[in-house]
């Protein structure tokens, strides 16, 4: 009481610093101790992590599938080309008549001719079935015009279609857009599925970590009761379990990422071959840095939340009634 105020203040400041240091070192001790505990029970830990990893792998995998399909649908707006297949027995004369008609039309902005020989060559190149074509007496592939309409307007497209239908030698008009539209539909379907799965499997991860934490709490009942009587706060008693939840989530997420990378590695060769056949701009894409960060942070967060829920329920039951 009689001590000068500044000494007292200095002492309080020192006490506060000691307390903050102790709090920080308690966090560090908890973080390290929980890892030691995980390593002390390698089989149980590995199984929990594997379950979490597999639960997270599924949405991650679908997400990757979706972003690979997205490469095609992203270009959807740009392409509304028509492919105009010509009759197989068409004469050079008729071909140039069709070309003239299209060239002079305002509805067409650009035009590309693919002869039946070139079509056969392309087909042989990307299908690897050149021998089959060679064995045929005649080239079965028709010549075609790839038409880029000048306007994406529906009315303009239908008058273009009318014009084409009126030309002699035109066999089949294929709107390239249609398969892309279907692809976009599939892609949307995958996106929705990913979202639903993420929600469902997030709950699964919550339950898995919650249940593991519940077991850990039960195993440490005696310790919790003693600490409670010695004046440990809820936060102090909960801390090791929350760290455990974070580690479960984080390492489970890492497990999912490793499984995903393994699968992608295994799929790279056939998937790249398939994608490149659609054009050199298409490549197998993985989860990417952001995706991986979201996966790891999200799973760590879920692990923490699962632990938090388990801890608040079970600690309350163990401590003061």
């Amino acid at each position, binding site marked *: 009481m009689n001590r000068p105020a500044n000494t007292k203040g200095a002492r309080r400041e020192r006490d506060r610093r*000691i307390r903050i240091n*102790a709090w920080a*070192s308690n966090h560090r001790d908890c973080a390290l101790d929980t890892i030691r505990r995980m390593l002390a029970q390698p089989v149980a830990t590995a199984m929990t992590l594997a379950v979490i990893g597999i639960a997270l792998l599924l949405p991650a995998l679908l997400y990757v599938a979706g972003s690979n399909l997205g490469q095609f649908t992203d270009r959807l707006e740009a392409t509304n080309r028509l492919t105009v297949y010509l009759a197989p027995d068409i004469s050079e004369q008729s071909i140039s008549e069709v070309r003239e008609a299209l060239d002079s039309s305002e509805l067409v902005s650009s035009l590309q001719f693919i002869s039946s020989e070139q079509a056969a060559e392309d087909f042989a190149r990307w299908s690897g079935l050149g021998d089959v074509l060679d064995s045929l007496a005649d080239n079965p592939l028709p010549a075609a015009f790839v038409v880029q309409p000048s306007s994406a307007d529906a009315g303009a497209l239908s008058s273009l279609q009318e014009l084409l239908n009126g030309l002699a030698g035109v066999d089949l008009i294929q709107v390239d857009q249609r398969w892309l539209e279907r692809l976009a539909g599939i892609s949307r379907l995958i996106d929705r599925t990913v979202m639903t799965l993420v929600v469902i499997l997030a709950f699964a991860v919550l339950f898995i970590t919650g249940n593991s934490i519940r077991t850990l709490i039960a195993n440490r009942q*005696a310790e919790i009761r003693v600490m409670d009587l*010695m*004046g440990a706060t809820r936060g102090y008693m909960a801390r090791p379990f929350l760290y455990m939840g974070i580690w479960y989530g984080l390492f489970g997420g890492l497990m999912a990422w490793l499984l995903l990378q393994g699968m992608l590695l295994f799929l790279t060769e056939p998937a790249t071959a398939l994608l490149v056949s659609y054009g050199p701009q298409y490549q197998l894409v993985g989860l990417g840095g952001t995706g991986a960060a979201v996966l790891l942070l999200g799973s760590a967060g879920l692990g923490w939340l699962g632990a938090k829920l388990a801890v608040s329920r079970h600690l309350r039951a163990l401590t003061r*009634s």
Partner: protein
Amino acid sequence: MIRFDDVSKRYPGGHEALKLVSFDMGRGEMVFLTGRSGAGKSTLLKLLMLSEPLNQGQILVGGRNIHRLPANKIPYYRRRIGVVFQDHQLLFDRSVYDNVALPLQIDGYDKHEAARRVRAALDKVGLLSKEKLNPMTLSGGEQQRIGIARAVVNRPQILLADEPTGNLDPQLAAEIMALFEQFNQIGVSMLIASHDLSLITRLRHRILTLEHGQLIRDEHHPSRSGASPG
């Protein structure tokens, strides 16, 4: 220091463990609480540790009604109270040292200060040489002394003990009681529940006797504070 005002405790199911118990205990006093099993000794201590709610009356510790403490203050109240259990409640997954250090960890002591205090407490109970052992490998008397070291390491103002000598032979029991008297002499208020009448009457401290939940006797003995330390 500790004051009970008409405290009653009924357990769910109707068993009335304490009926209108009132007493007052001064700072630095050493008090024994005796009575047969089931007389309410443990319940009384549990009410002081806030591990059971009470039904009636109030308990003041240092002038504060402890059962009115908000939940977030309870841990800090408990840190001021050392508790010794009959079954010592040691944790067998860690060393003697770590058991004794637990209250200091909880209270956020820095490691060097904690080490100093743990060693001082272990020295006091004569087990400094066993700090690295697992308490499971020690005898019952030694385990109880570790429990005592853990209870006093935080220098509590009040020490509660529930049958601390219940599992020990008479000589070890006397040693434990002598240890308690030493702590009392440095100013710690002590409330010790024991049914070992022959032992506690010999020690000549105040004795509260419970019977069927009621305080039936409160005997004061001459203080031994003048006696020279052993």
